């Protein structure tokens, strides 16, 4: 499955698309497939500080909840209000169903994230287990 090459990825299956000192965050198509039909997304309010590696919210299917882990540190500027009423957008197109837009605290943190190729390899290994 193709992962956008201009995104970076985490091992917790989040993607981040950076644009200078701002970035957009979501979860990958692999994540939404494992979760199944998504029924609810719990996201932080604008102004919240998020810390790299710590949880910033959660995503729920009927039978499971998964925490969302911040790929980098930053401040939340915008939250995708559409996901409150139509969380299924994540199932339909995870890579364009963005969750939060943030201002990066330290853009160099992006360097330690996975590229699309690395993430694809990681997913293949995990799937094979």
């Amino acid at each position, binding site marked *: 499955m193709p992962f956008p090459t201009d995104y970076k990825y985490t091992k917790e299956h989040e993607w981040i698309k950076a644009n200078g000192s701002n970035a957009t965050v979501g979860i990958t198509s692999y994540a939404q497939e494992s979760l199944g039909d998504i*029924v*609810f997304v719990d996201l932080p309010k604008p102004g919240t500080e998020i810390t790299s590696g710590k949880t910033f919210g959660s995503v*729920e*299917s*009927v*039978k*499971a*909840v998964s925490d969302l882990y911040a790929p980098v540190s930053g401040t939340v500027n915008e939250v995708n209000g559409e996901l409150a009423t139509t969380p299924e957008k994540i199932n339909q197109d995870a890579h364009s169903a963005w969750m939060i837009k943030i201002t990066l605290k330290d853009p160099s943190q992006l360097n330690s994230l996975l590229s699309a190729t690395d993430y694809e390899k990681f997913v293949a290994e995990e799937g094979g287990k």
Partner: protein
Amino acid sequence: MRYLPKSPADRKAMLQAMGARSIDDLFSPIPAEYRLERDLKVPRQMAESEIVDWFRERSRENGESNATFLGAGAYYHYRPVIIDSLISRGEFLTAYTPYQAEISQGTLQAIFEFQTMICELTGMEVANASMYDGSTAAAEAVMMAVRLTGRRSVIIARSVHPEYREVLTTYAHHQNLPLSTTSFKDNGRLNLEELEKSITPDTACVLIQSPNFFGTIEDANAIADIVHKKGAMLVVSIAEAVSLGIVEPPRRADVIAIEAQSFGVPLGFGGPYCGVIATREQFVRQMPGRLAGQTTDRNGKRGFVLTLATREQHIRREKATSNICTNQALVALMVNIFMTIYGKVGLKELARQNLAKTAYASAQFGKHAKVLFPGSPRFNEFVVQTSEDPYAINSRILGHKIVGGLPLKKFYPELGNAALWCCTELTTRSAIDTAVGLVAESERSMRSAKEEVDAQEVAR
């Protein structure tokens, strides 16, 4: 043993099929040092008739056929006969939790109807499928408000049931939630000035009970004004559900925690009862307990399922809204049937009779002793203050096979010789008159004893 459906031949055949020599083989995983080699020291096996006799004896030792003036969170109301006829059906009595929705539609639809009626009665938008009881429902409702506001302290009215307050203290203690109490005035209602002063920016919620422990109806709207202005939530506990037939519910509360025992659940020496939490739709994901939701099947047919399970322990585990698993489904079904039987008109009439009996009783008592907390509306309970210790008066009343009001000294020592009396639709005028008569007699003899003492004082 008559509950075990296997013959010795069956057991033998099964062991053979399994290639085991004896039952003992199957218990070999238990280390030998722990295996019991003796009989348990419990009473010997009894025949059914012996069991019935044993419990009949206990029933006789338990004040059979006494009239009662006790309330205080557990109420003696009439239970229509069809409640037990219906809940005794094996398909309700012996069914499991409705996790497999396709073969539990009976239970699930009943829960959905229950949730609907609780909403109608409380003025809230969503209600759950029951909590353990009113006391734990109140504690869980407070925890909900703490989670929702992100604030860490709680104010409780002192006129909330003392045992409910004890439960909340236990729950809050280990969550490091400071609890403070706020007091009531001479009219039985909450002291609003004191309340306003005690709410801080760290107050998550204020918990009140209405009608309160003394039977007095609080001014919930005035309280909501104060509480909301300061950004806190209002949690209202309702212990006497029958009041909802004639008393306006606290529509501006954020969470309501109910004890629904009055709706068709036997007194049963304290349990099982039926707690419920009702709240606004926006808070539903923080509400503990099971929820039945409407949906459709693959053919578009209406059906019901347990939903929003992700709040619960079996999925969230340590992040659950609560640890609650089992609810009170069978008693909730009793409540459901009761609400259906009385319905829109009957619930009002039932409440009205409670009001009438109580108005008569409190007026009669008031002629001879002091009825506390005048000046506020009350539902079916009131407090009578006597010169003599209520325990002594109750002893005499018991001689007439009547249980008198609950002495309050252990809960509210400042009220002196006070007792909490409750009248329901089952309380007879004759019982009221007898009790009033004995209280009147008590007052008379206390007065003349005092007069004698005073006379002796004067004589000296």
